[in-house]
């Protein structure tokens, strides 16, 4: 009975694992193949290992430029998201003032709709601010659209921190801004990591916003770059697959390094309900 269950379990899991991994395998290995080889042999090892596809991409400045662009945008997005949302969440969690509920509700309105519904006016706003083709034209809207969810998560966490700490701090003459910096933030590392990871992954993979606000390919983040590259070499699949593989490396590395935070972050809706 136990053995039968184990067999069934392994069978199901292996099949699903194949479903997940075979496309990735075909992609990574495809980058090492010649066009002729790709045509006849999608899954097997290459008949002749060709390194040119990978080397020609890594050797171009354009590839590194767009990874750099994405990295800059993601860094600023994460830092600003954390800073702005934790400041607001702290105020809403610990201070009682007129209009607090109203402001809290206002700031969570963003949970109701996705970015795409407002994309055209956002484009016009970014254009009127003169931010088209700049990093900020991507960073600021991204931070703004991260706020609602981040504030909900952070505020919930801040509110659960032990009250005695704050009362003791106030008795000792510690001001509210200092409490934020000295007590709240250091105690909130797990939730900050969660919010940060969410912002990071969202920014790194974002496509629609830069597609709309960035036209100059010197500022392209990598998802735009990869589509441009694919447009250039459309059926030269060896090159395209090599490019795809190279862009998967940072994502998978990050995933392996911070698996816990990533899964917790991306599924945090489940915990909160």
């Amino acid at each position, binding site marked *: 009975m136990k053995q039968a269950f184990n067999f069934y379990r392994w069978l199901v899991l292996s099949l699903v694992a194949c479903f997940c991994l075979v496309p990735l395998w075909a992609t990574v290995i495809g980058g090492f193949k010649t066009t002729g080889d790709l045509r006849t042999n999608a899954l097997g090892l290459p008949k002749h290992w060709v390194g040119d596809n990978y080397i020609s991409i890594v050797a171009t400045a354009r590839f590194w430029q767009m990874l750099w662009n994405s990295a800059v945008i993601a860094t600023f997005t994460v830092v600003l998201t954390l*800073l702005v949302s934790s400041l*607001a969440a702290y105020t809403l969690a610990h201070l009682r003032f007129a209009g607090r509920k109203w402001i809290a509700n206002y700031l969570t309105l963003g949970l109701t709709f996705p970015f795409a519904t407002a994309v055209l006016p956002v484009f016009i706003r970014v254009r009127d601010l003169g931010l088209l083709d700049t990093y900020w034209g991507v960073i600021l809207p991204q931070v*703004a659209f991260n706020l609602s969810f981040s504030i909900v998560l952070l505020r919930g966490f801040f509110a659960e921190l032990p009250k005695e700490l704050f009362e003791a701090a106030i008795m000792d003459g510690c001001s509210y801004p200092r409490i934020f910096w000295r007590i709240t933030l250091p105690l909130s590392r797990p939730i900050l990591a969660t919010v940060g990871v969410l912002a990071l992954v969202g920014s*790194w*993979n974002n*496509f629609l916003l830069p597609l709309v606000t960035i036209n100059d390919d010197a500022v392209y983040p990598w998802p735009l770059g990869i589509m441009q590259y694919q447009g250039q070499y459309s059926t030269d699949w060896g090159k395209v*697959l090599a490019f*795809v593989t190279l862009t998967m490396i940072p994502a998978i590395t990050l995933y392996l390094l911070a698996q816990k935070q990533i899964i917790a972050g991306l599924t945090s809706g489940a915990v909160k309900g």
Partner: protein
Amino acid sequence: MPLNHSLIEEPPVRKLPSSKGSLRSSLRASYRSGILTTLLLFLPPALVLFSLFVILPVGEASFFSFFNWNGYGTPQKWIDFENYSRVFADPIFRQSLTNNLLVILVSACIQVPLALWVALLISDRTRSSVVFRAIFFIPYILADVVAGLIWRYLYDGDYGLVGTIYRWFGHDAPDVLAEVGWATAALLLVVVWKYFGFHMALFIAGRQNVPYDVIESARIDGASRWKITRFIVLPLMRPVVVLSLFFSLLGSLQLFDLIIALTGGGPLNSSHSAVSYLYTFGIRRMRVGYGSAVGVVLFIICVLVMIFYKRIFMRESASK
């Protein structure tokens, strides 16, 4: 008033009292403890950014949607609801919404059950479970664009996996992505591949929240593995299933990158989603009014979904 005096005499100030007489002193007190500074420094960044890039744009979208406007100068040609009637009259838009619906259906009928099934097999903490979990989550962490390009290759009749499989049986492969109907079906498979790991992770978290002693006592009473799953675990996981379906709904309404990378909306604009429709027919042609109307329709759908979800969720938690 010496500084220490107020600290000793008064309890920690958390409130701005509204009575007139003490207003000045309480303002001073709250200044000293930093409440005022906190309010004036901590809230505005969020409020400004959020208003500027989230709330105002949504309002502007509904305003622009009544104009025929190409985005330059100020909108002047007021055309009432014409954008809306054109949107709803467009068969391509209706096809796009149908595709959104198909994604939701496939998600509810295939993806979520698959994810639940797999999650129940790997929710324990054995090493094999941990490894499988990591594997199943990988497609989800890849960018949609990457997933789209990978599958574009796999579906390519001349090169990819589909071509190879067909040649094993001695046939020439159809070009899946070039045929109306097949392209949409192909898209649905990629959606399952890309997102089932996410739902699985939700279910694993939900399964681990099922209290252990309930299961243990059922086991002691002699309940079989299947019965425990069927009558204890699954009912307790209902809220997570509702949540997961809700995420499929929201995800479907946002589906965009994947389509652009996989099919570009083609062939013959048959595989668009609402958002890729908005992009192709509103943004690319700079028809700001028209695109805004699509955005507003999308917005209304999202709000309806949200209300619907809240009602279901309320009922769920009320019935417990």
